[in-house]
């Protein structure tokens, strides 16, 4: 697979055939498996009906699949060239949705595209990674390790995070922060700077607490003690644990989850779909889904590390981390390890924007793999 003679070609353009055969079919297969699990679960969530979720999800996955393929065929240098542009366009959309929505017709997080509602904050997860990758690609290690060098990328992170927080969407804001943090770490920002920031955050936590909405405070408090409010916010997590635990090793069987089908489990088609899966397919089903996710993430890392370009590596790592965060936050949340912050399980939870953004991300990762031997400069 590895063709060493190609490394020196700087201006080489890959042919369509090269690009097609460069796509990792096993990676695509893993994605399809996961999406199929999602559709099966949505079919069950509607008590064995294609409506209202399973069919819609299938169509969206089709669209997402298309978006993935399109991305996979893009030359990585195009991504590099337009990284900042994309970032600023998405930031603009975010601003419009936030400010216009805020001033105008109440909080509105999305732009209606007719067939689906597009959330700019979701696109920002990709745009931010692209912009940061481009920035860190363009500067030296020396600059990365200097204070001055991280001021600009910090601003690039904090602007969208601030806008998303105003919505208020704590889950997305945290994901943007963690993704960016992972990238800062990967490029070599010294650990003491992280230590400083974390210490600063802990110190300012009581102040930040004042700015949280009551429902957000409740979520955190309820996470710390679910029994505090067994009929209100704590109800979700208690019922989720009951559903999971009662599923046992082999589960209650497809369409037989009592907690889910008798509506004890809230949000079973969105945030708590992993719970429903674990109730019906047990520990085995749950581990299967985690294992597929593990494989997708592992493949992504392999693609990242195989890329010869710094930009490509960082782009793939950022996108993979973003995907990983979805998975870990959602599952940890339904397992009662994290507060209920409203993060879906990509490809399985019902929701259009997430599929589109995650599939776009996979497309870019595939492109990184296809273009792994394209040598690109710092610009």
């Amino acid at each position, binding site marked *: 697979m590895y063709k060493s003679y190609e490394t020196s070609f700087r201006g080489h353009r890959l042919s369509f055939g090269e690009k097609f055969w460069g796509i990792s079919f096993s990676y695509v297969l893993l994605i399809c498996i996961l999406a199929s699990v999602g559709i099966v679960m949505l079919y069950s969530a509607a008590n064995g009906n294609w409506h209202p979720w399973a069919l819609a999800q299938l169509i969206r996955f089709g669209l997402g699949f298309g978006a993935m393929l399109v991305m996979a065929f893009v030359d990585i240098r195009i991504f590099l060239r337009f990284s900042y542009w994309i970032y600023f366009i998405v930031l603009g959309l975010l601003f419009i949705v936030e400010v216009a929505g805020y001033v105008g017709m109440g909080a509105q997080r999305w732009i209606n595209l007719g067939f689906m509602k597009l959330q700019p904050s979701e696109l920002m997860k990709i745009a931010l990674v692209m912009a940061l990758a481009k920035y860190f690609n363009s500067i030296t290690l020396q600059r990365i390790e200097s204070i001055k060098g991280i001021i600009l990328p910090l601003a690039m992170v904090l602007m969208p995070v601030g806008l998303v927080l105003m919505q208020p969407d704590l889950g997305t804001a945290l994901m943007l922060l963690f993704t960016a943090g992972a990238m800062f770490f990967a490029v070599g920002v010294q650990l003491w700077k992280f230590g400083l920031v974390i210490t600063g955050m802990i110190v300012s936590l009581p102040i930040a607490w004042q700015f949280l909405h009551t429902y957000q405070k409740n979520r955190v408090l309820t996470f710390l003690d679910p029994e505090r409010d067994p009929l209100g916010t704590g109800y979700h997590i208690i019922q989720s644990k009951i559903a999971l635990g*009662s599923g046992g090793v082999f589960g209650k069987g497809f369409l037989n989850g009592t*907690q889910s089908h008798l509506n004890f489990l809230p949000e079973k088609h969105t945030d708590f779909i992993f719970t429903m899966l674990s109730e019906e397919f047990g520990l085995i089903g749950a581990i299967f889904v985690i294992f597929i996710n593990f494989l997708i*993430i592992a493949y992504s890392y392999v693609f990242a*590390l195989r890329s010869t370009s710094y930009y490509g*590596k960082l782009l793939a790592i950022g996108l993979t981390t973003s995907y990983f965060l979805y998975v870990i936050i959602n599952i940890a949340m339904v397992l009662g390890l994290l507060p209920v912050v409203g993060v879906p399980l990509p490809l399985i939870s019902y929701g259009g924007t997430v599929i589109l953004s995650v599939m776009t991300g996979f497309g870019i990762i595939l492109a990184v793999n296809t273009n792994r031997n394209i040598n690109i400069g710092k610009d």
Partner: protein
Amino acid sequence: MNRDTDKGKILIARSLFLGAVQLFLLFLLVFRLYYLQVYQADKYKTLADENRISTRLLVPPRGIIYDRHENMLAENRQNFQVLIVAEQTPNIDKTLEAFKKIMPLTEDEEKKIRKDLKRNRGFVPIKIKDNLRWEDLTKIMLNMPYLPGIVIDEGLSRYYPFDNIFAHVIGYVAAVSGDVDTKKDPLLEVPGFKVGKSGVEKMFDKDLRGIAGNQKLEVNAIGRVMKEIESVEGISGKRIDLSLDLRLQKEAYDLLGEESGAIVMMKVDTGEILSFASAPAFDPNLFSSGLTSQDWIELRDNEKKPLLNKAVSGQYSPGSTFKMLVGLTALKHGVSTRKTKSFCSGKMTLGNHTFHCWKDAGHGYVDMEQALQHSCDIYFYEAAQKLGVDKIAETAKEFGLGFRTNVGIENEKSGFIPTTEWKMKRFGEQWQQGESIISGIGQGYILTTPIQLATMISRIANGGYEVKPTFEKLDKNSKIEFRKLDVSQYGLDIVKKGMYDVINTQGGTAYSARFDFNGKKMAGKTGTTQVRRISMKERQSGVLKQEDLPWKYRNHALFVGYAPHDNPKYGVAVLIEHGKSGTAAAYLGGKILRKALELDATDQPID
């Protein structure tokens, strides 16, 4: 260039570390899943079942109560109720309006319905009306197409086909009230479940209730029933066969009519109670369907106290019906013999106190049989004076007075038989001879209940055996051995002869109540007790006639008797509050005893 290589190396190294951290975190999830789904699975399986399974109790039909000839005295009737299910109607107001045109609702009823509708979820049926009559039911059925959301539900409710007649024996059922320990029987917690509140319904409540069935239902998060998982039928309540005879009970109730009083009749050999009436009574059906406050106030404030069970809870001076016991005591202790005579001049004096016979002119010389026949007071004054109260009390207790019979009806009173010791303890005073004298005619401190008097007369009639009253129907073939009382046949023969003469010999106080049914007659003794004191002044100016007194000042009328006179089978005690004279009570006693004898001559004897 060198720095560039470093930049790439750092990226690779840190990325590998990042990947390792992510892998580790994913592994943590697996660990947590294992903890929840394997280690704690049992706990959560139980919790999941508690969520989804709702257990409901199935109320078993209450046991049927029969008389001794298998006539139903308390049964379960189909009870139709109308319910409304909010989610099954597009417009609740419209449905209610349409319903009101068919069956009007009071403002209170409508308020309650609207409150219940607000409080419950849309699929919960709300009761609109209970105990529907047939014509209303058919009207609603006909109009069902215009009444969306209206549902008819069928249940069982207690029904007493003889209304007032058995009110004080059978009692009634009503909703469980607060002071009952619901832990003993889960049925008690079922909303709308009714328990026996008085009479036989209370006495045999545990048997009548039966054992609850179970229905396990799968419900969803908002409580809607999805399906039945399992259903175990309960066990119906046991049937109860009572000793009562419907025909005699009806007769007793009819005989009392408008009067306030009680009739208790039993078999003298077994103690089986054949009729047990207290009047006036109430309709127990009103209690089981829910009494209106209007009805309640009427019952509570009625001068004749329909709610009081006079047969066991009413305490009365036995008056002259007590004289047999004084006579038996005198014969036992040798104070009198068959031939001993006393002279009655109409009064006797002790110190400066005068004791009057009911007959001012006096009875002249009388022996015990004659004294009983004419109910001469002087004869028994003298006997009691010689005996003293304690010996009389001994006999009275032997014949069942002064103790509860424990027949099983609630609020039974024990009556009272005084002794010298009691008076000393109670008042710290010596017993006065005068008090013994009036005890001789069943006045003074002595109190008895009608059921005690029925027991007393049965013990005299059966030849002196300690028969005990019971409501349970006994097996015909089983022989019950009762203790022989400390009384001589000689004594019994004398008082029985006296009682025979009361009814059947000219001059007897109840001669007018006599009957002769194929040679079978009755024997008995009347009693008339004053409820007010007759003053000296009144005696001189002439005692007012009973008819001229207000009802509540008239004398109580009592009668104890048995039949047939020569081979007694049935004993009866009759009380008529303010019935003026014992003869009136004897009249009722005669009727019911004759009825019993007549029944025995039909093809369905009492047995």
